[in-house]
């Protein structure tokens, strides 16, 4: 849906790193130099990289979880109550509105809606599914290496190259077309 999008007038550089600490340092250096259009790649959710290197804020996925869960619970209660009131029929001598029994339905709906809206929240926030071709990517990033991809205008690309080269990248690859990632 979102994925990497071509950015007119920009160039890209992909640096592949073997070490976690060099990746974190490279991200910090890029941020210090005022670059914003960059992404780090990792084969695992490495907290040091996510928290120190990129200083990401709270993920809004939790709002989706909460909203989905509350919607589900409300739907479950509303559905069972409305259908019982719609044709009031006493069975087993129980009240028409048998709340304890409806708690079970409401609970299951809360979990179901909460889980599905968590997935929707993840997809929206993480830009998945990304059905465009895999550009600005290196297959080693799912294996054992870390990566940093920077998009910058041609005027600043030399500066970016110097910063990245200072952290001993395994590989430094330049894209004539920059992508927003």
């Amino acid at each position, binding site marked *: 849906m979102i994925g990497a999008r071509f950015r007119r007038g920009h160039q890209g550089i992909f640096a592949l790193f073997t070490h976690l600490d060099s990746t974190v340092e490279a991200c910090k250096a890029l941020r210090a130099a005022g670059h914003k259009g960059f*992404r780090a790649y990792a084969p*695992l959710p490495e907290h040091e990289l996510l928290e120190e290197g990129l200083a990401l804020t709270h993920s809004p996925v939790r709002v989706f979880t909460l909203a989905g869960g509350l919607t589900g619970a409300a739907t479950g209660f509303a559905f069972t109550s409305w259908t019982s009131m719609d044709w009031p029929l006493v069975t087993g001598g129980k009240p028409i509105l048998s709340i304890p029994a409806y708690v079970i339905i409401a609970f299951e709906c809360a979990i*179901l809606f909460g889980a*599905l809206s968590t*997935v929707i929240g993840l997809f929206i926030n*993480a830009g998945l599914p990304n059905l465009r071709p895999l550009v600005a*990517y290196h*297959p080693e990033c799912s294996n054992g290496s870390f990566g940093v991809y920077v998009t910058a205008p041609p005027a600043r690309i030399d500066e970016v190259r110097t910063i990245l080269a200072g952290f001993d990248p395994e590989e430094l690859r330049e894209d004539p077309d920059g992508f927003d990632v």
Partner: protein
Amino acid sequence: MTTAELTQRGALPNPDVGKYEDVNRDVLKVLSRPGKGWWILFTMAAAGVGLFLTSWFYQIYKGIGVSGLNAPVGWGVYITTFVFWVGIAHSGTLISAILFLFRAPWRQAIYRASEAMTVFAVMTAGLFPLIHVGRVWHAYWLVPYPNSRFLWPNFRSPLVWDVFAITTYFTVSAVFFYLGTIPDLAAARDHARGLRKKFYQIISLGWRGTDREWHHFSKAYIYLAALATPLVLSVHSVVSWDFAMAIVPGWHTTIFAPYFVAGAIFSGVALVITLAVPMRKFFGLEDYLTVKHFEAMAKLCMLTSAIVLYAYMTEYFLAWYSGEPPERGSFWNRVFGHYWWANWIMLTCNGLVPLMLWVRRVRRSIAALFVISIFINIGMWFERYVIIVTSLSHEYEPWAWGLYRPSVVEMGILIGSFAWFGFWFLLFTRLLPPVAIAEMKEVIPPPRRGRVKEDAA
């Protein structure tokens, strides 16, 4: 904690696995080598699925009369097997969600396989209500929708709760399972060639492992685990209320929910052991599924076996203590009546055999655990058989007592259900990484150049 201590606790894999690349190499090679043994098992599973479908189609063609179901025992092998498979499903979510929230150090290596087991077990269980209703073309009546006069189903009925519980459980466990595999599917994509690469390209949803993806993914995973945890406890409770809400002697008891949940985890962990032992051997995953992992699962079995045994004893005691003749009669009938053998298989396999797990040497012997886990699987199937069949065969009025004998068709479907489950599980071991690659990397110390530490010092 030092590396040695972590390895000792089972958090770290074998010291031979020291780099991220090692995990990719060892796990992804499973996907590229079918092997003769796999094909033999797969052929057997496919034949079993054939038996399953033949038996079911025969029943659909001739009618539910070809099963042994009749008054008074209207629930037999089908419902027994349904509860059995729902129970099996529980350990997967326990290991993947509950142990994730508790940060259990040993779950990483085993959770993918057990989660897959959960999904396939619910898929198997979900067929049984359809088989049991007989006229399967009316199975959509299970969906809560109003009839032609706009009367809705009775939401006070535990059977309706069950529909909600099982569909929710299947959806959530399938989503949780799939979501967890996405980063590993991307790893498989980057490794594979040809048609397989195309397949992984599509199902990995274009995952690249960027900071943004990982950031939201980690959070979504925690929330899903937090939702799956109460769900797993609720599902088997709801299944137990299918029985406990009825006034049948032997069913109508308040301990059913915790008793069923403990039994579900007991049987599920046992099946994880049964499946993990051959998987480890055939696919050369000895460095990942170590004796530590098996010992940890054996301890879970020990605990849940004790809870289940305690529940059996409580049931007998309360039947006697209640002073109710039908209740006492029902339990006397269980132990000494027509189905005494089923009850004693249950007590032996679930209560006595697992006592061996209290010995440390047994817990650390993979061969012994494999044998014990099969006993537990048999015992837990018989537990449900005992609860369902003996209780229905011996209710209140002596003239309404009756016996039940499973027919050949029912046995065909029972055996076929194991093949159906095995069929999917075997496909899983060939198509999806059977050990969670990204999560295994989390327990391996990340590669560092070391300059940061020197600077700090």
